[in-house]
């Protein structure tokens, strides 16, 4: 936002309107997943593009522009989530999160998902706490590597692995329960 008070050089041939129209929906969806609120997501998406616009000179054309904008949006949303709670270390792995051998109780999602629709998965995802929701969204919606996620969340790569693994377990549990209820019908 230094641009507010200085003249900047803008990358040549970059029409921001086009970039915006091309990526807006995807950024909005990302914000929806991360924030779990359509209203806040709209504000966040707008803010992400404002930040991108103001920081265009820091964009490295060697990487895809979309990745750069998604990163800004993710960072902004995570900042919002951090601000929401007094506890800044929301993505820290605590004692209950360390990996223990599988109980064999939960089966991979694919089995469960055979009878489920995407909307149910999204609803189940929305019901997870941000601690597990955010890493899952970054990994499977944004398709970021553990390394990239750890950089965004500011936690160790090994912790990201545990959060994603646990997150998927919780997701299975929630979808499984719903299926269990619906089966008798």
């Amino acid at each position, binding site marked *: 936002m*230094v641009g507010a008070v200085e003249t900047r050089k803008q990358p040549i041939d970059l029409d921001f309107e086009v970039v915006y129209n091309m990526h807006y929906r995807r950024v909005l969806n990302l914000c929806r997943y991360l924030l779990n609120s359509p209203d806040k997501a709209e504000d966040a998406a707008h*803010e992400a593009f404002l930040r991108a616009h103001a920081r265009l000179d820091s964009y490295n054309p060697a990487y895809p522009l979309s990745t750069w904008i998604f990163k800004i949006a993710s960072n902004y949303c995570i900042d919002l989530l951090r601000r929401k709670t007094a506890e800044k*270390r929301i993505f820290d792995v605590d004692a209950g999160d360390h990996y223990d051998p599988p109980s064999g109780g939960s089966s991979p999602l694919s089995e469960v998902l055979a009878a489920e629709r*995407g909307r149910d998965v999204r609803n189940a995802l929305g019901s997870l706490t941000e601690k597990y929701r955010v890493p899952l*969204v970054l990994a499977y919606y944004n398709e970021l590597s*553990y390394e990239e996620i750890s*950089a965004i969340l500011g936690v160790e790569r090994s912790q990201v692995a545990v959060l994603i693994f646990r997150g998927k377990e919780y997701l299975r549990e929630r979808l499984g329960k719903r299926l269990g209820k619906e089966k008798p019908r």
Partner: protein
Amino acid sequence: MICPNEFTCALFVDGELQEEDALELALHLDSCKACDSRVAALRAENRTLVQCLQDIDSDMSSTVPEFSTSSGRSVSAVGFALGVIGVAIAFKLSTALLFGLDLPVEFGWLNPREWALSLGVAVNAVFYAFQNADAVFTDTTQGLILVSFSVAVLFGMVRIFKRGAAVTSILGVLVAIGCVSSPGYAVDLRKGPRASIPPTDTVDDTVLAAADPKAQSMEIAGTIKGDLIAVGDVIVISGTVEGNVIVLARRVEITGTVGGSVFGAAHTIIVSGQVARNLITGTDTVDLSRNGAIGGNVITASREAVIDGKTARDLISAAATLDLRGDVGRNVSFAGGQVTLTGSSRVGGDVGARVGKEENLRVAEGAVIGGQKNVHLPVATPRSNRYLTVSFYAWQVVRVLGLFVTGLVLFKLIPSLMPSSMSSGSDWLMAGAVGFMTFVAVPIAAIIIALTFIGLPIALITFVLYLIGCYLAKIVIAEFVGRSVMKNSGVVPLLAGLVLVIVAVNLPWIGTLINFLLILLGLGVIATTVYRRVSHRPAEAF
């Protein structure tokens, strides 16, 4: 190789396993059907998850709103500007309405129009603040210190223990109470008929007393070991209060003994008893009777002051008329209409009078003045309207330019100070609250630090930073206002914002209040930004 657990399989599927481990696992899958099917299932799970989550991207039904480089919150910015002005007007109107209404008779004394000099509570507050930095300072700042200390402890504990807000809050409050509290007095709340304390009664606590509206007067005839804070129509203190007395009433009579100081806002205050420390009043009439004695200073803002009793230290009075008939141990300072020292009066030190005419200081024959007699006459400079002077506008231009240059440097160095994330009214409310805390807590913290010898330089640095923060606060807000109004960011909006802010703070009548509110909001934004920078790695650092 033994069969890997599900966690390892998941890492393998996500492509996050170390290369050699991945290779080993891949070889194992060739020979183990169970693991192979598990990995296949996990892979399918990932695919499904990606597909389900990305499914919504194919929904093109929603329209893409037009992109604008404005913060998109011009409405809230206008709302903010209107809010600031609205609060200022509402504040002014509500006070006018409140005091203009027909209040119950016991609150009649609150009406500043009944006070000849319209001195009101504000003057009283000023005198509180300028009183000797002893007991008064301690009393009035104790509460603020407690709150500030609690907040400081709270932040400290959040940083140290990194626990949830609820746990930290409880711990923080417990620690703050444990550190600050002393074996002091509890509070005894008395209302209505119980408010009066009969001669035989002794109360060990601090008493908060509100008089029975039906009763004519409230009498404190017994003994109070703590402080007395009383509100009523007529309050008579004929007993003993060992602590301080704080009274808000139409008429206050003190015939008994007060161990501390008396702070009074009333129409009439008559003291014929003993006050061990200071008498500080904002009244229409204050009368220290012949038998009355004040162990410390008398500080009074009133229409009429009659000091017949004994004042051990200074007498400081702003009044239309002051009649000094008794003894004053040290100096007499007077500002107002007319001061008369009768033949029976004795002043140990100097007599200084800020009066309109030389003859308004009358010293009768027989009056004794230990020091000098000084009359300060008003300097004969015609009071011009500042808005009609060129220097005023020249100064404001210099002010805007100064702020502008500072703003350019500031945002170049710390761009995150631009309050771009202030999306709602609650954000501004939060900024205001944080700003208020900063505004109050920082000077107090600086004073506390200064009390230790080693802390003095730190206190000075803190205080300088505080003053710089107050200066920068308006720039931060001006940048936001400019950006919102011009729907663009840059040099011109910053300048425009500054011009608007400077015009607003120079508005007659409400300018001062707007200035104060803007400083609070700006300080809030600055404090929050600094806190975030200190507390965690900013998420947008890339």
